[in-house]
């Protein structure tokens, strides 16, 4: 049995009486070191400073926060190693519904009231499971994905792996997805669905299909994952992302708006909502949501340059060049010098739009890099807009063509069209569209011969 006297416990609960109860139970198991956190921020602060071995966290944390949200944030900032035990504690039966649906789950959850013996039994099982997966966790952390998958495959065929069949399959599918092997991930998730229609596995299929750019199918699968599991909020985020890729920005905004109301302090979701609103032409919503993100996401390091660029972009969209310029010039020179190329590109492009005399020379200076580098859709759109506004049509057309020929053409289409219309270049845009279509046909005719 594990020696719990050497383990550091952290009890997270907003109710003092409940904290005392959990400490008593932990002490009954022999625990000496039991720390308390009374709220969400306090919990993050303590975990960041000194990672506990075992976290007992209540599902309801007050102030509109939940233990599930804490778990997601800890994973997002990589503050929770696979070796740390995270146990959700709840009197709420509805948490079972959450845990059976979502992709990101704690090591286990336990329903109050429970005896020290029952907690002990549960903890011992987690310890055994973590020991079984220990070598895999190491390879995964080192991003040695091929080795991680091979280890899982060996475990799957072992006698000791029999109690963990689903966990092994789930981990395999997840690693396949992060390592970029979407086709295998799809197969793995479908294998799990053959046994039971788990919403998280259905969402996994949708994620894989999204990566494969099979958008219509991805949309169908994510709709199935959401049907009947209204508390599966991450699936709503995924649906919105797929909608955006399909060019259905109004639907994306609607989906995110509904879920964001239920999770007012999930700032990752709000960032996504701002993006959807921007693509949907609702620049007022985009900028108020981005302002809320920057003011409200108090996690250290959470607000990035990208976020402030998004805020500036939303001001530009709302034709509020003064506010946009204010956001941009508030970034210190040292900071801007340390931007990566994508951030620099957005920065100079947005500056060139809202303050031509300041931005134009810097934008021109970056031109060679902007022509030759592969940039994401959002950045390309910034560059395209700036190029149109400073009259550098060849640069605009280059990015227009790249976007229209790329996998996210549908996502970018409405923005590009309105920008070209704004500068009276509808005809040129249609011409580029035609060229891209011709190239595609040419490519498709040529492709079978090339692969033979």
């Amino acid at each position, binding site marked *: 049995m594990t020696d719990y006297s050497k383990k550091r416990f952290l009890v997270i609960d907003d*109710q003092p*009486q*409940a904290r*005392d*109860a*959990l400490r*008593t*139970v932990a*002490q*009954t198991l022999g625990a000496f070191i039991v720390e308390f956190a009374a709220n969400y921020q306090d919990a993050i602060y303590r975990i960041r400073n000194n990672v506990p071995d075992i976290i007992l966290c209540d599902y309801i944390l007050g102030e509109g926060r939940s233990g599930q949200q804490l778990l997601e944030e800890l994973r997002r900032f990589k503050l929770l190693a696979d070796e740390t035990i995270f146990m959700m504690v709840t*009197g*709420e*039966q*509805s948490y*079972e*519904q959450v*845990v*059976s*649906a979502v992709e990101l789950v704690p090591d286990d959850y336990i*329903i*109050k*009231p*429970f*005896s*020290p*013996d*029952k907690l002990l*039994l549960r903890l011992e*099982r987690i310890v055994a499971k973590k020991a079984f997966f220990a070598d895999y966790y190491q390879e995964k952390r080192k991003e040695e994905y091929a080795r991680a998958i091979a280890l899982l495959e060996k475990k799957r065929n072992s*006698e000791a792996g*029999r*109690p*963990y*069949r*689903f*966990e092994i399959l789930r981990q395999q599918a997840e690693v396949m997805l992060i390592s970029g092997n979407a086709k295998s991930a799809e197969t793995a998730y479908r294998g799990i669905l053959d*046994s*039971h229609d*788990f919403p998280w596995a259905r969402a996994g299929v949708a994620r894989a299909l999204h990566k494969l750019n099979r958008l219509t199918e991805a949309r169908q699968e994510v709709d199935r994952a959401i049907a*009947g599991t209204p508390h599966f909020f991450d699936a709503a985020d995924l649906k919105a992302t797929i909608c955006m890729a399909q060019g259905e920005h109004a639907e994306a905004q609607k989906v995110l708006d509904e879920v964001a109301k239920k999770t007012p302090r999930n700032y990752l979701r709000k960032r996504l909502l701002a993006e959807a609103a921007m693509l949907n032409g609702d620049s007022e919503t985009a900028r108020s949501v981005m302002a809320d993100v920057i003011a409200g996401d108090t996690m250290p390091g959470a607000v990035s340059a990208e976020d402030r660029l998004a805020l500036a972009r939303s001001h530009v969209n709302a034709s509020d060049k003064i506010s946009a310029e204010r956001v941009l010039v508030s970034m210190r020179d040292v900071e801007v010098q340390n931007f990566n190329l994508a951030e620099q590109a957005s920065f100079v492009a947005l500056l060139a739009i809202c303050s031509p005399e300041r931005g134009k020379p810097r934008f021109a200076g970056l031109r060679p890099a902007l022509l030759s580098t592969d940039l994401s859709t959002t950045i390309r759109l910034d560059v395209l807009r700036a190029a149109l506004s400073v009259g550098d049509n060849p640069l605009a057309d280059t990015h227009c063509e790249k976007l229209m020929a790329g996998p996210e053409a549908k996502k970018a289409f409405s923005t590009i069209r309105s920008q070209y219309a704004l500068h009276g270049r509808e005809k040129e845009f249609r011409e580029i569209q035609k060229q891209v279509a011709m190239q595609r046909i040419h490519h498709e005719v040529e492709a079978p011969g090339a692969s033979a």
Partner: protein
Amino acid sequence: MHRLLDILASGIHDTKNQLFSAESLIAGSEAKHQIDLFEIRYAIEAAADRLSRTLAAYQLMRHGAQLAVVPAIVSDLCEEVGLAQKHHLVNAGISLTIDCQTFDDWPLDRDLVTDMLNNAIQNAGRFARCAIRLSAFVQDEELVLRVEDDGAGFSTLPPAMGTGLIVAEKLAALHSRQEHHGSLHLSNGSALGGACFELRLP
């Protein structure tokens, strides 16, 4: 949405938190004074189980319940039921044996199935002479969970079903795989000579 349901659920949630405080105070006293107050804690947990079961029954009858299916390790589930019931049965002069023949995990609603088995064993405890057996095995691609006792058996077959059994039957049927549904079987075919409660899950 379901306002009455929300009020009931939140009241039950608060009560269970209170019961947890009570149970942990008792556990603390047991450790401090080296005494055994197991029966008090058992009574507290039984009360909490009743509340949960009542809420589940209400939800099922009024709104149609939705299962929370997770892959559960069958032997762990049996062990936990044993932990909850064994000590109490020993105090009543009844032995509980657990015979789990499967090592695998199985997709099921862990908390509902645990509660059904706890309930079945509590019922069996009222009629058993001195033995109850909980067994688990896989047969025809179904997980079979069986509670048998050595009592006089059901006086009529099919037996008159109380709320607990009616709910158990519905919840069993909600477990499904493709077109195949779970089922509940009550008989006097116990290997120990008494009643047999059998849950089959696809």
